[in-house]
């Protein structure tokens, strides 16, 4: 029953737990969403979330305060995801229950029927990540820059180019779709 700010050893842990639960409550859902968007299978996202918050717990002293904490978590989740994509995938027992729930509630989606996702999938990793951070996570270019560890100026420039490339890809697909429809019409 540590009610007072008086314990040496005990209180920092209380602080740590209070801070961690605040971080977790405020940001776990969005980190999960971030991971789901980038994971091949929904249950992989559970491991990304678990590992991201485990890093946060173990490095709580390094987690900045306020809005910066959110960016720090995204940056950490991005590194965890990068490790997963390099094959350093951890199946942590911590995430067992969340993994099972995601597997049950989000069965593997069929191949995308959304041209934007197809177009994104064919783009370079750096372009895709920047487009998603701004378009889906709704970060400003300067916030996305913080997550990616690049300068705001670099993020703006890259974003401009990435949008141009995506536009071009969507244009190609649009034209291809139109062509297909015309060919099908002629075949009939």
């Amino acid at each position: 029953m540590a009610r007072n700010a008086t314990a040496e050893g005990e209180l920092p842990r209380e602080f740590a737990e209070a801070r961690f639960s605040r971080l977790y409550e405020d940001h776990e859902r969005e980190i999960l969403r971030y991971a789901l968007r980038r994971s091949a299978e929904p249950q992989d996202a559970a491991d990304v979330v678990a590992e991201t918050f485990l890093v946060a717990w173990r490095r709580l002293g390094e987690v900045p305060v306020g809005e910066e904490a959110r960016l720090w978590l995204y940056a950490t989740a991005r590194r965890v995801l990068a490790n997963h994509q390099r094959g350093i995938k951890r199946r942590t027992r911590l995430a067992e229950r969340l993994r099972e729930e995601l597997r049950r509630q989000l069965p593997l989606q069929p191949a995308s029927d959304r041209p934007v996702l197809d177009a994104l999938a064919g783009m370079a990793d750096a372009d895709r990540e920047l487009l998603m951070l701004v378009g889906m996570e709704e970060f400003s270019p300067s916030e996305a820059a913080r997550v990616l560890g690049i300068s705001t100026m670099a993020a703006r420039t890259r974003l401009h180019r990435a949008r141009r490339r995506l536009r071009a890809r969507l244009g190609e697909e649009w034209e291809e779709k139109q062509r297909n429809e015309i060919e099908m019409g002629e075949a009939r």
Partner: protein
Amino acid sequence: MRAREIDLKLQEADRFSAQEMEWLELGPAEAALAEAIVTEPADDGTAEAAPIPWRSADRRRRGRLLGLAGTAAAAAAAVILLVLGGGSQSPPRAYGAELVRFAESTPLLLLEGPDWRVQNVFQVSSREGLEGSMEFVTGPPIPYESTKISADYTVSGMAPKAVRQRKVELSWRQGELEFPAPPGAPAVRPVESPVLGTTGLVNPRAERLYIFTRTGERRIDLGGPGDRQMVGIWKEGGRLLEMRAWVSNFADFKERLNWLTKVDSETWLDAMPAKVVKAADHDATVREMLKGIPLPATFRPSRVPDGGLTTNRYQVGAAVTGTVSCLWFRQWGQARRTGDRAAAAEAEKAMATSRRWPILREMAKDGAYPSLVWQLAAAMPSGEWRRGWRLLPHAEALGCARQGIPVLPWKQRRQNERAEISGRPLDLRP
């Protein structure tokens, strides 16, 4: 296509829109993950994933206040016994077997200093076993203290030195005879001291706190010369005992250690404030507390749990208001699932009056339970505890499942399955 149109297309293509995420029933799994993480030992195995080095965009930015009282509400539901009030001068009484059993589950210790008395007794049953504490005071009662340390490391909410030094806290739990220092903080250099026929360890400078900051640990001194907090620990019967007190010097602390006396259960119960042992009229108290509270059709006074030992008004109040609130939250959850707007509105309207419930207003002086009820009630219209967080899993923090009124559908199913296995009739009441 302009930049904005590109972003809109990306949002439209998102398979995990806010609305789709809302359908996911992940609350218990997410809570289990958080709980598992904070019990993880330190290990560098995952450290490489941290974004290093992280440089703050605005180093002048200050953090928000870190509150220390936030977990009080969750703890309240698990309390076996809590008493507040003056000392007992009553003649010896015969105690019921249940009270004697309870007394014997504690270390049966009293602080027999001149004019010192018991102010508080608290024991919870945790996964590790029984954990409890007692507060001894001299002079006027000492109210609940909530200390805060702000982002610029100023401390507020501490009682004055003269008040702090009128209190001694004794606690017991499972644990080792050691003072673990937080990572980065200097090791505690304990002093040996005799206590209750054994040798204990005393940390004579426990008023020094070490907190996490971006630049490392930071030390905060809550005391000063003539105003030290000391903590003594020793083992007894497999459990760790701890005495914590603000004192002028080590001699004062040793004197308080010497006052600790092992007693029998009757002497221990005699030392409790009178209202613990007066077999309070539970039903009359419940009726009195229900005044001013709108009750759902499913409410029966018999649904309020009577722990037998819960004689403190705060605990009875938590049981009463918890029962009523859980029933309203259960009705609200079912109504929202079935689209019964009238029933949902009725529950919201009833809970909106909770700020005026006399018993909650009375309890607010002693703890955080009323504040939890009010926050949950205020979140009903939106259905979210915080943005993106569904309300019902948080309503369970009132102890609904423990009181036999689970508000989450999966908990209701599990309760009914258990009832079926045990052969008891199913609880199909709403």
